[in-house]
């Protein structure tokens, strides 16, 4: 929980934005921040194949509007 207490503002925030904009070091630092704050936890989260369901990102043959409302 303590990791969720980060606060950056003022000139420090502007400096961080400039730092993250640098091509190599900036990218690496941004990735570290993202991993520490979110991605490590996501990647550790157990989601066995037996319970995972495919995510629908595309649906072929959509049906038309139901005919109600004011379309």
């Amino acid at each position, binding site marked *: 929980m303590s990791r*969720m*207490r980060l606060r950056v503002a003022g000139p420090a925030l502007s400096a961080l934005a400039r730092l993250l904009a640098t091509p190599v070091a900036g990218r690496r630092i941004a990735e570290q921040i993202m991993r520490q*704050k*979110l991605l490590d936890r996501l990647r550790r989260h157990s*989601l066995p194949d037996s319970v995972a369901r495919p*995510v629908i990102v595309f649906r072929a043959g959509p049906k*038309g509007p139901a005919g109600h409302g004011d379309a």
Partner: protein
Amino acid sequence: MAMLDLAAGQADGPPGLADFARAYRSGRTSPLEVLEATLAAIGESDRADPPLRAVIRTCDERARGEAARSAERWKRGAPLSPLDGVPVLIKDNTEVAGVPISNGTVLDFPLPAADARPVARLVAAGAVIVGKANQCEIGAGATGINVHFGSARNPHDPTRWCGGSSSGSASAVAAGLVPLSLATDAGGSVRAPAAFVGAVGLKPTFGRISRIGMSILCDTLDHYGPISHSCADAAAALVTLASVERDDEETWDQPPLPDIAGALAALDQPIAGLRVGVASRVFAHPRVDPAIGEHIARAADALAAAGARLADVEVPDLDTSLMVGLVLLGAEGPSGMEEILEAQHHKLGADLQVLLRCGEHVTARDYLKAQRIRQQIRQSWRALFDQLDLVLMPTTGQVAGALRKDALKHGEIDEWSSSRAIVCTFPQNLTGFPAVSVPCGRIGALPVGAQLIAPPWQELCALRAGAALERAGLYRWRRPERYLGDRIL
């Protein structure tokens, strides 16, 4: 004229839609007079120290045309709806024809040629679009900071924020500048700001209101929703804004809503027998102030006193939902604006620059895993509604926080305040289920919101319980420190 018999607001409260309709019908005032008073009040709100900054820009000439046509209709006794002549503000991330859109940024967006679909619905109902409400830059933020236009102030205490990202939409309603505003919600941005200012904020079911014309922050999380003074006005707005659009597949699955009179009649129904799950373990969550939990417990008692059947429920883990939501936000945001943001990156605030740089590191595999966990969360919430009609929990984990000087000038990334603002709202952006925040008390001068969550398409059930909470009188309206509504109506 039965359709205009909206429930009146609290006698001493801010004017709601019914009050505007009554004043126009009686000839006491006209939509043109109300518009001019609204424009003057907006100007005055920004001349105060500190400025309210609820509104980014007004569209005076367009609004005057709409108000003149509305005045003519009222004169003929032929209003289009209970919203005819009512001044409404639109969050700046939404297209209004002929009015510059900035999405809370100083980027150069093309001038919109058409109204976004919900704006067109409001106009077709006779509403007068007054202008664009302030927001966090591109909608990414939970505390309402905007370094470009100034941060919207909380009318109850101008040293505090209104939450985000729909900061101006909430501030304007609470300050009495308009009785209704259109906002958007990708992680709680309708409900949390409404809770922070003592207003009603409704996030309908995903697909209920078309998003054509919204500068989308997150494809799978964003929703439109109204902010108003009462559940009755939220219901009238919902019926107005909802539509099945032939060119918007997202809207096709929705069942029809009744007309406004039918929706209001539904809100008047007793809640006896309604099965309400109280998420009492949330009251002890580390990101929820225990004093907020006490207010929600009182709200539960009020629902029980009105005849609801309460059950204690455990909702899916809030921390997992927050983690999943933030990963999706990082990956999807800002899905529809990538080109313009990349080309004008240097014009963005430092806080947004940092968030965008970090979000680039979510891989496709991370994204799909987050979506799969999201499906599990959604299934768990759906299972709760096999036994329940509603779930009651806090809207936010804290009351409105203090605006800090360093944040006002340079922006801020404040994980703790942000996570407390959205930890209770984010789950319903993952599920797409409807949820409404209704004021249920105060801590000091600052309002507390109770969140009522319903299964898909049951917005009116949530609003019916919300109306019961309003009748219970847990939150009595007090004139906020910044209030200009009495100059308008």
